[in-house]
């Protein structure tokens, strides 16, 4: 008998504080597995966002910083410039990356910073209790779009992968999901590829992961997984939006 699934070394023993069925946990594990497999744990420096995953510094088993809301890419930029051989990973939510952090993420990509961004798109502000995110879908009800998001009042949901793929400094931009075993596998592949390209110095890399927030969506974890497939993926198509060729 051999163990086929267990806790990766890049994660500490600490129990996640996340709500039952929250997919933050899955993505944490995938990132940790990639770092283990690439043998980068000791070179890794993680930047945690302000969002439900703010406490990720309690979970990752490598050096981490907790960033001011939205500024993770700026922090990662400075560290990477000073320590070019380290592996810089920011982990950011949709409020953090696409709302308050829009300027920082776009400029990090334009500057072709050699960092990897894990972007958790759960179409809502989880930590603060379910307000509208830039990625909230049209019609979706949140505490700050109580009658459902409309173009007139709230504008269009931000397609960050598409937007960042425009940036010449972006080496790898991919959107995946964790709503099925197959997509979980693809997500892990994407994260690994992004980190590898970062370490090759090819430029800015980002993996947008469509995730769930059962608590603030008011669904069971299983319903939430279905909602990702039925409503999010149709608007946020999965796939690689930019893959820079080597050399």
């Amino acid at each position, binding site marked *: 008998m051999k163990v086929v699934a267990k806790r990766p070394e890049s994660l500490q023993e600490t129990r996640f*504080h*996340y*709500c039952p069925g929250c997919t933050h946990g899955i993505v944490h594990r995938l990132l940790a597995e990639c770092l283990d497999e690439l043998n980068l744990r000791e070179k890794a420096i993680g930047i945690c966002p302000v969002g*439900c995953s703010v406490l990720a510094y309690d979970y990752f088993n490598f050096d981490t910083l907790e960033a001011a809301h939205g500024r993770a890419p700026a922090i990662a930029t400075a560290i990477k410039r000073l320590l070019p051989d380290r592996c810089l990973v920011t982990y950011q939510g949709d409020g953090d990356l696409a709302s308050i952090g829009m300027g920082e993420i776009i400029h990090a990509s334009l500057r072709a910073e050699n960092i990897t961004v894990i972007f958790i798109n759960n179409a809502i502000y989880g*930590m*603060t*209790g379910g307000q509208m995110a830039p990625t909230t879908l049209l019609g979706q009800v949140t505490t700050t779009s109580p009658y459902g998001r409309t173009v007139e009042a709230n504008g269009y949901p931000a397609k960050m992968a598409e937007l960042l793929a425009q940036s010449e400094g972006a080496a790898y931009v991919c959107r995946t999901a964790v709503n099925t075993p197959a997509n979980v596998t693809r997500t892990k592949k994407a994260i690994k590829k992004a980190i590898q390209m970062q370490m090759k110095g090819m430029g800015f890399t980002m993996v947008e992961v469509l995730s769930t927030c059962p608590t603030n969506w008011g669904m069971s974890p299983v319903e939430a997984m279905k909602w990702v497939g039925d409503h999010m993926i149709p608007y946020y198509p999965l796939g690689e939006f930019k893959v820079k060729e080597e050399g």
Partner: protein
Amino acid sequence: MEKQVLFAGFGGQGVLAMGLFLSHAAMSSGKNVSWVPSYGAEMRGGTANCLVTIAEEEISSPLTENPLMAIIMNRPSLDKFEKRVKPNGLVMINSSMVDRTPDRTDLEVLAVPVNELAEEMGNPRGANMIMLGAYLEKTSVVQVEEALEYFPVIFKGKSERLIEANRKAFMAGVEYARTRM
């Protein structure tokens, strides 16, 4: 004199709602009241609790270190708050989820297995109303009859079905307190 009661339990157990109900009822019956939750939209899991202060005169401090009464819905809450209840205070315990009794001997302790009772009546989410019923029957902080009158006001906007379910649960608590304690 100001009466202060603490409601404590898990996030999902409706402890804040218990406090709210009591506050509404107290206000409706012409008293002064304040309701202070331990909030934390930025905290996941862990215990939730709220403190309700009721008085005839104007309320000075809505907070206290030593509440007169405590409604304890889970084990961690008992561990945390037992020592803080006023001498000779009242502690009501959800015995379905608390596997011990207080160590203090000066306290008046009433145990109600609200989860079991709720499951029995096929309304698992009604556990908190059961406890509330038992509490009011026991203490008359607000008269049970009065409280019942305010149901429609307090649950304004909610479906008849839900109001009825809550009233049933509430009465079951009252019943339990009358007969079994």
